[in-house]
């Protein structure tokens, strides 16, 4: 008798579930899509501002003499075509900026567990590449710089007190 009752209850629940099948058919694919989008690698990390913090306090800039103080030997990434620097402080690879996201080059970067140091004669290129890789989730990423005053104005403004303002 008891078994009969429990079977009836289960059947009743299955019937009711069938009534809600449309809701479930909508919710479950939606959940799967959200999960895929959330955990897909290869896109950018969430919270750009948190990742970009070191560019605000400029701790992402490193000078040649500071390279030796890094815990592990860094991977020096030369972003300018045809340029090379001696392997004094770490492993050196020449990856022109345009080809940086090609699969092989990404493998090289991902395979390196220590710091990555970007090297370019053009600070604008290093800056763009740094932010791009940073937002993709690369940690311990630096820009090699030859001076600490890249964002310092090298000239002084001299006001002309004789001018008449026109508003």
């Amino acid at each position, binding site marked *: 008798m008891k078994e009969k009752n429990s079977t009836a209850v289960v059947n009743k629940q299955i019937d009711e579930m069938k009534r809600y099948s449309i809701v479930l058919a909508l919710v479950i694919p939606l959940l799967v899509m959200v999960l895929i989008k959330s955990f897909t690698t290869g896109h950018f990390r969430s919270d750009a501002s948190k990742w*970009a913090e070191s560019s605000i306090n400029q701790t992402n800039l490193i000078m040649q003499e500071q390279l030796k103080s890094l815990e592990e030997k860094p991977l020096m990434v030369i972003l300018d075509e045809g340029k090379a620097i001696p392997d004094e402080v770490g492993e050196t690879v020449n990856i022109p900026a345009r080809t940086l996201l090609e699969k092989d080059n990404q493998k090289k970067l991902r395979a390196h567990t220590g710091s990555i140091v970007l090297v370019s004669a053009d600070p604008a290129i290093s*800056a763009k590449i740094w932010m791009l890789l940073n937002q993709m989730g690369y940690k311990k990423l630096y820009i090699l710089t030859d001076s600490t005053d890249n964002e310092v104005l090298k*000239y002084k403004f001299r006001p002309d007190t004789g001018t008449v303002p026109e508003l």
Partner: protein
Amino acid sequence: MNTRQNLSAILVLLGIILAFLPLSGKYSLREKPDKLLSEVLDEKTCFTADQVARFVVTEDSTVQLIDLRSAEEFKRFSIPGAINIPYNELMALDLESYLNRDVRSIFYSNGDYQSGYALIIARGLGYKNCFVMKGGLNEWYNLVMNSRFSGETITARENALFETRTKARRMFTELNSMPDSLKARYRESKEIERKKLDGGCE
């Protein structure tokens, strides 16, 4: 538990899962990395100091200069017509009201780093009309403020360039030589103009 309770439990559970998911926030770059890379490495995303000087002289309303230096530095001097969004506040602000317009937004700072970072952030967030002034204010000083002609003959092109630089230098010096109160009034009037162009109210 009946089916309705079961479903409610499932939906609550889903809600909890969604709440803890690392969903793309407001300030997460959305553009595809390879597309973004080719865009920002394109020379078309850079304006020279001379091109910016021409925009300043002609008071080009299709261009908005964005000074990424600190508010203090901006208060001391800036390129005429520029607005200030300090780089450290860039991602805390609602960029929609600054960048999502038909005008071209040109970032500049003293050098190339901050404008380079800002370009990736802005274009990565989908603001396609963003550019940088190559070399920043250091290059502006080098080309425009310290421009001197020292030859005997001058071509028409050189003459036009020199005139633009001279006019831009004069405008820069006039604006930044004003007392702070007048400078503030000038910037307010520019802000009102910007809002008008943006279709907003004063």
